[in-house]
């Protein structure tokens, strides 16, 4: 059975590394994304991640396959959903390849494409009590625009 990419449990990087390391892969590059305590100058207390689960799984699988095909890298990744505290690991990637250049490139590809394509969202709880969805595009129309 395939391991899901989304998890509500704490991510264990060692397990991801075990899934990609092998005798012919001399380089393993890992990436951890952790919850920051500030956003746009405001103090963040915790985060909630939510996802469109079935589509997120499909998109993660596509990205993993891209890394495999383009760089011959074995990649394992997981993304947390649910409530996370400051410093918690929200995403982890392990990319293994025969040599370091391919391993670095594959790992970089996976995190960049994940942030661009995988339907996951986060809601920040600020120290001042306000709660906001992270939306760098600020796309919603104001009420008056109707």
């Amino acid at each position, binding site marked *: 059975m395939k391991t899901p990419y989304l998890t509500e449990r704490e991510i264990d990087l060692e397990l991801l590394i075990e899934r990609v390391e092998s005798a012919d892969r001399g380089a393993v590059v890992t990436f951890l994304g952790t919850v920051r305590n500030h956003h746009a100058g405001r103090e963040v207390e915790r985060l909630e991640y939510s996802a469109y689960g079935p589509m997120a799984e499909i998109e993660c699988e596509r990205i993993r396959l891209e890394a495999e095909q383009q760089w011959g890298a074995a990649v394992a990744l997981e*993304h947390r959903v649910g409530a996370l505290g400051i410093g918690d690991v929200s995403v982890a990637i392990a990319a293994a390849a025969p040599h370091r250049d391919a391993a670095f490139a594959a790992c970089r590809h996976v*995190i960049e494409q994940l942030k661009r394509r995988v339907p996951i969202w986060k809601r920040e709880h600020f120290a001042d009590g306000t709660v906001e969805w992270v939306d760098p595009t600020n796309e919603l129309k104001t009420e008056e625009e109707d």
Partner: protein
Amino acid sequence: MAEKLTLTVRFLARYAELLGTESATVTLSSPASVGDVLGVLRGTFPGARRLPDRPLCALNLSQVDLATPVAEGDELALLPPVAGG
């Protein structure tokens, strides 16, 4: 009389708050496009009028544009700009 089709629309993350629900069942005349479904939503849910003109849409888990035709039993999802990582 024109044929009708019915599909499920899911509102993810911030859009669920905006519309006040996580999903809706929409019935409209066939043939219809993703854009037509959005038109029905804007007429039904006051919050839907704050959606961007071209929100990110997924039909049966694949990203589509507004011109894509919808069919009976489809699942259309409206996705805010993604922010994972």
